């Protein structure tokens, strides 16, 4: 990579990170707590890239040229027999950072199309949440008002003494519709992520008792209802109300 290409790439990567952090779009890919870290790291890269661009354009006294050539020479004589298959740094005049071009891949992908948050495709394919063994125990829900909870908590409460902690308290859940072959009702799911979408694990709940058409696959819904024991182990909510919503800002729990 030439000096200006390197600087531009660093600048673009930094700008992408800053933009993801500021728009909140990063929540589709990593856990929400990482926004600040992304912003700081992105800002550092923007600064590094700007200095590099200024230097490449000749706006700043150029001291880096000597380095550039020192690199090139060391490269030329160092690489003779070390040419790994499939790697981009085999040529004497390269900086050994030709792989840096690849960083433009995610940048372009994010500039042009925003990959969606994980959807129903992976629900059956990820390792399922296993709440049966060594699960938590819960205090009973306070009676009277509707309790909002994550799908994971719903599943864990369902596994704890066959859902005794629910009582008759109504529960509100938010998730997206995912396919399942149920005789009645449909399933909703939501992923938990610990760090990024690569480690997502889905919690699944079956919703019964709704009238009308089942919402389309991957449609986000909020359902309110009461816990109901099911025969096959999939925790079940008997819904009293169902609303289709737009995807929440943080699609994961």
């Amino acid at each position, binding site marked *: 990579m030439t000096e200006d290409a390197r600087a531009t790439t660093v600048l673009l990567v930094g700008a992408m990170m800053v933009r993801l952090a500021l728009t909140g779009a990063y929540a589709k890919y990593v856990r929400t707590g990482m926004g600040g870290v992304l912003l700081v790291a992105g800002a550092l890269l923007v600064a590094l890239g700007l200095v590099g661009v200024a230097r490449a354009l000749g706006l700043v006294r150029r001291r880096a040229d000597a380095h550039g050539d020192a690199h090139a020479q060391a490269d030329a004589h160092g690489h003779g027999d070390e040419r790994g298959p499939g790697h981009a740094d085999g040529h004497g005049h390269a900086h050994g950072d030709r792989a840096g071009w690849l960083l433009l891949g995610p940048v372009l992908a994010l500039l042009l199309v925003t990959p969606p948050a*994980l959807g129903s495709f992976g629900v059956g394919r990820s390792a399922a949440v296993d709440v049966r063994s060594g699960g938590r125990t819960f205090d009973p829900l306070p009676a009277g008002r509707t309790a909002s909870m994550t799908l994971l908590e719903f599943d864990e409460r369902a596994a704890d003494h066959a859902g005794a902690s629910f009582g008759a308290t109504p529960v509100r859940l938010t998730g997206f519709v995912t396919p399942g072959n149920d005789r009645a009702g449909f399933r909703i799911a939501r992923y938990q992520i*610990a760090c990024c979408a690569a480690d997502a694990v889905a919690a699944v709940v079956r919703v019964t008792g709704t009238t009308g058409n089942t919402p389309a696959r991957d449609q986000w819904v909020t359902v309110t209802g009461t816990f109901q024991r099911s025969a096959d182990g999939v925790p079940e909510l008997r819904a009293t109300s169902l609303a289709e919503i737009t995807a929440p800002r943080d699609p994961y729990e």
Partner: protein
Amino acid sequence: MPPVPTPASSPEAPPADDAAASGRRPRGAGLPLVTALIVAAVALRPVLTGLFGHPAVANWATVFVAITIQALPFLVLGVAVSASIAAFVPPGLIARLLPKRPALAVPAAAAAGAALPGCECGSVPVAARLVSIGVTPAAAFAFLLSAPAINPVVLVSTAVAFPGRPAMVLARFLASLAASVVMGLLWIALGRDDLIKPRRSDHTEEGPRLAVFLATAQHDLLQAGGFLVIGAGTAATLQTLVPRSIVDSVAGTGPLSLLVLGVLAVVVALCSEADAFVAAGLKQFSLTARLAFLVVGPMVDVKLFALQAGTFGTRFAWRFSLATFAVAVACAGLVGWWLL
């Protein structure tokens, strides 16, 4: 996205400089090339958008972007440390601080790994820098392997993921440290330093320090970042093609389960700060098998392999990763049998 138009709006600017200044590399080829790439990508936008209608493609893209985004801050941290060592630490100081005998330098370097609070992507550029400033490779590799596994952030997240099981934290610490030291000692006994691709960055003494810092940071970031992209793509492909639920069909105990979870750790390429939460969820497996997942993950995985191959060379990365996998599984098995 205010900075984005920069390359597009000023493609003519750089040729003002004479190409002779940089010898064979024509100055100014970079910005037009970047611009052309962006224009081509914009033209292809409808095609890309159409592809995302396919759930598998969308899933791949999401996981690919997620791994890259998640790793970049840690990469920035690692690159900053690496560039600081290159620019501000007197040459030879770190080598002098470590014990003279390699057999003692290895455990010292492995223990020093506890001081780098990051995940595995950040430790590769730092370890490469250590090699290039003259630290014995065995010690640098011990650091490379231990840093992502035994630093406080990772240990705390392990404790949070396994509440009420402090033995798991201790076991992870001991098994990871042991595996790092064993690999360092193995390198002294069997390793050949000619397997390591020489680096071209032994320019620590020239130029003003800030310029060295900036040039090194840029270089290390692009090199490691490029290979990170390869690794993230590989991991996303494997995750999309191979359902993770496949591990549910494997028996939960016995030596086979250690291997299965070890391989799973290699394939899914999780951040070492998050893998404990995934391990905690794999309840159908024994604690020892899950320990193998936690010990192998920060040391060997597909994205780390790409980073190592890019930094130290492919010939090195194959041998090193296979040996590390075997040592890590063995250490996890022994420590798990003892403690868990």
